[in-house]
C-alpha cells in the first residue's frame, strides 16, 4: 500500500533550474503552483523545492536533500544530462523514487518515471512548417539558444526538416534564449541580409526581441517569425491571427506539473505509474490556440 495512504509523511524533493529565462520562469511558476495545490490536497505529502542556477549547485541540492531532508522521492529536471546522471543514480541506488523531467539522463533505466517534452519534435515541427509554407529559394535566419545539447537537438532536427526543400538558411547565431540578445542579433541580421523571408527564433522570448527588431526596421511585411514554447503573449497574438506570427511550437513548461502530479499519485494511491510520458510538440495555429492560452501564468 502507498506510504502516504497509511498516514506516514512522505517527502518529495524537487530540483529544477532557476528562473533564468522565460521558459524556465514559466516552469518555476508551474512547479510552485502545483506544489501548492498538491500540499493542500494531500496533507501527508511534504515537498522540498530547490532551484539551481548552475549544474554544480543542482548536484549540491540533491545531495542536501538526501543528507538532511530524508526525501522519499526526487523529481528532477536536470540542468544538464551528463553531469546529473551519477548523482541521480546514487539517489536511485539509495532506494528512492526518481522522476526525471524533460532532459533525460545519459544512462537508461535509472528513473522510475520520465516526463519530457520532445526536443527533436520541437525542431522538426517548426522545420516542417517552414518547408510547407516557403517556396524553394526562400531565405531564412535562425536564432539559437544557449549552446547546450538540447539546443543542438532542436537545431539539428530543424535543419534536417528543411533540408532538400531549397530553403536557404542564411545565418545561425546564438541569441541565448534572451530577448535583448535576440534583439541585437536580429538587428544585425537585418543589416546584413537584404532578403529574409522568415525567422526561426526557436523560443518565444527570443521571438519577442526579433519582432521588435523587425518592426524597428519597418520590414514587418517581408517576413514572419516562429518562436517556440507557448508563451501566453505569443499564443494571444496567434489567436488574433497576427500575420507576423502565424504559428508557434509548444514545449509546455507545464510538463513539470504533470511530473509532480504523477509522482504524488504514486505515493497516495495504488495507481501504477512507471514509465515514460513524452509530451509531444504540437503546432499552435489560430485554430487551436485557445487551448494553449493560460492567462495567469507569468510565461
Amino acid at each position, binding site marked *: 500500500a502507498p506510504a502516504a495512504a497509511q498516514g506516514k509523511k512522505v517527502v518529495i524533493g524537487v530540483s529544477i533550474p*532557476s*528562473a*533564468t*529565462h*522565460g521558459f*524556465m*520562469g*514559466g516552469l*518555476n*511558476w508551474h512547479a*510552485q503552483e502545483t506544489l501548492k495545490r498538491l500540499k493542500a490536497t494531500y496533507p501527508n505529502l511534504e515537498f522540498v523545492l530547490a532551484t539551481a542556477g548552475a549544474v554544480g549547485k543542482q548536484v549540491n541540492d540533491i545531495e542536501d536533500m538526501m543528507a538532511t531532508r530524508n526525501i522519499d522521492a526526487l523529481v528532477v529536471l536536470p540542468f544538464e544530462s551528463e553531469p546529473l546522471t551519477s548523482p541521480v543514480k546514487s539517489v536511485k541506488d539509495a532506494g528512492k523514487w526518481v522522476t526525471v523531467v524533460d532532459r533525460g539522463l545519459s544512462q537508461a533505466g535509472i528513473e522510475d518515471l520520465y516526463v519530457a517534452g520532445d526536443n527533436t519534435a520541437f525542431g522538426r515541427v517548426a522545420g516542417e512548417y517552414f518547408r510547407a509554407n516557403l517556396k524553394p529559394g526562400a531565405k531564412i535566419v535562425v536564432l*539559437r539558444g544557449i*549552446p547546450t545539447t538540447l539546443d543542438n537537438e532542436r537545431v539539428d532536427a530543424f535543419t534536417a526538416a528543411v533540408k532538400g526543400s531549397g530553403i536557404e538558411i542564411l*545565418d*545561425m*547565431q*546564438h541569441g541565448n534564449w*534572451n*530577448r*535583448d540578445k535576440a*534583439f*541585437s*542579433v536580429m*538587428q*544585425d*541580421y*537585418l*543589416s*546584413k541580409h537584404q532578403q529574409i523571408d522568415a525567422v526561426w527564433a526557436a523560443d518565444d*522570448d527570443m521571438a*519577442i*526581441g526579433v519582432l*521588435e527588431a523587425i518592426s*524597428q*526596421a519597418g520590414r514587418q511585411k517581408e517576413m514572419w517569425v516562429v518562436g517556440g514554447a507557448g508563451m501566453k*503573449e505569443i499564443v494571444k497574438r496567434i489567436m488574433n491571427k497576427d500575420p507576423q506570427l502565424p504559428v508557434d511550437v509548444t514545449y509546455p513548461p507545464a510538463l513539470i506539473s504533470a511530473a509532480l502530479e504523477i509522482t504524488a499519485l504514486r505515493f497516495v494511491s495504488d495507481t501504477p505509474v512507471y514509465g515514460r510520458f513524452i509530451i509531444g510538440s504540437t503546432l499552435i495555429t489560430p485554430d487551436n490556440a485557445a487551448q494553449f492560452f493560460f492567462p495567469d*501564468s*507569468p*510565461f
Partner: protein
Amino acid sequence: MSDAAARPLNGFRLPSLSALGPLLALILLVVLGALLNDNFLSSGNITNVLARSAFIGMIAVGMTFVITSGGLDLSVGSMAAFIAGVMILAMNALLPSMGVGVPLVLAGMVIALGVGLLAGLTNGLLVTRAGIEPFIVTLGTMGIFRSLVTWLADGGTISLDFAVRQFYRPVYYSGLFGIAWPILVFAAVAIAGQVAMRHTRFGRYCEAIGSNDKVALYSAVNVDRIRLLSYVLLGLLVGLATIMYVPRLGSASGSTGMLWELEAIAAVIIGGTALKGGYGRVWGTVVGVLILSLIDNILNLADLVSPYLNGTIQGGIIVLAVVLQRGKSSA
C-alpha cells in the same frame, strides 16, 4: 634650470599614445567592419550599434566615477533589472488612475530615477558608513536586486501594459533630427560626464580620493560624501539607462541586465581608467563601450567558422585593444 619656473605655460598637451590606444583600436574595428560588410557603415547599422551601446554606456560613465574614486559596483546589471521591474509594475498600477499619456510616462521615469537613487544610496552607505569593501557590498546587492526582480516577476517576465508601451515606445525608437533618443541621451551623459570629470570639483575629488584617500582627507575633501555621491550618481544613471531600456522591449525579467556590470567595468578599463582608481577618463569609457558593441556587431555581420568561437575572438580583441594602449609593463 631655475628659469623653468618662468617659462610660459603650455596649456595644450597632445594626448599621449597610450591615451590614443583605445581610439586606435576603435578605428581599426570600424575599418574591419567596413571591409567585412557593405552595410556596416549604413546609417541603420550605425544607429543600431550606438543605440544599443547607450544603456551600458550611461552606466559605464557612472562606473567611471566610482572606479576613479577607488570603488567598484558589481550590482549595476541587477539594479537595472530591478529598477525596470519596479518601474513597469508601478506604471501598470498607475495606469487605471492616470490613463495612458505623458504624465504616466513621466511618473514612471521619476520612479525609475528614484529607485536608482535609493539603490545607489544603499551601496554607497554600506561602503562609506559600514566601511565594507565595495566588491563585497555590491556582490551582495547584486544578488539581492536580482532575486527581488525575479520574485516580483514571479519567475517570469514583467510586461508593460500594451497600450502604455505603444505610447512609450518612441522614447527608444524615435529621436530628434534623425538621431535616436538613446544616442542623444548617451551623448549628453558622456559630455556631462567628461566635463564633470575634468572641470568640476566632484571629478577632481574622485581622482584625488582614488589616488590617495588620505591625502584627500588631509586636504579637507569630504571623502565619504564624494564616495557616496559617486555611487548615487551611478544609481541615477542606471535609472536613466532603464528609462531608455524599458520602451525597447517593454519588459523586465530575472535575466534582464545580466552581466552588464562586467561589460560596464570592462568598458571603463579598456578606456584607460585605472582599476585601482586615481585616474578617470570618461571619453575613454565611451570608446570602450563602442569597442565592445562593435565587436558583437562585427561578429554578427561576419561569417565565422563557428559561432562557438565568438568568445575567443571577443576575448582576443579586448586584450589586443589594451595591448595597443599600454606599451610598457607596469600594470
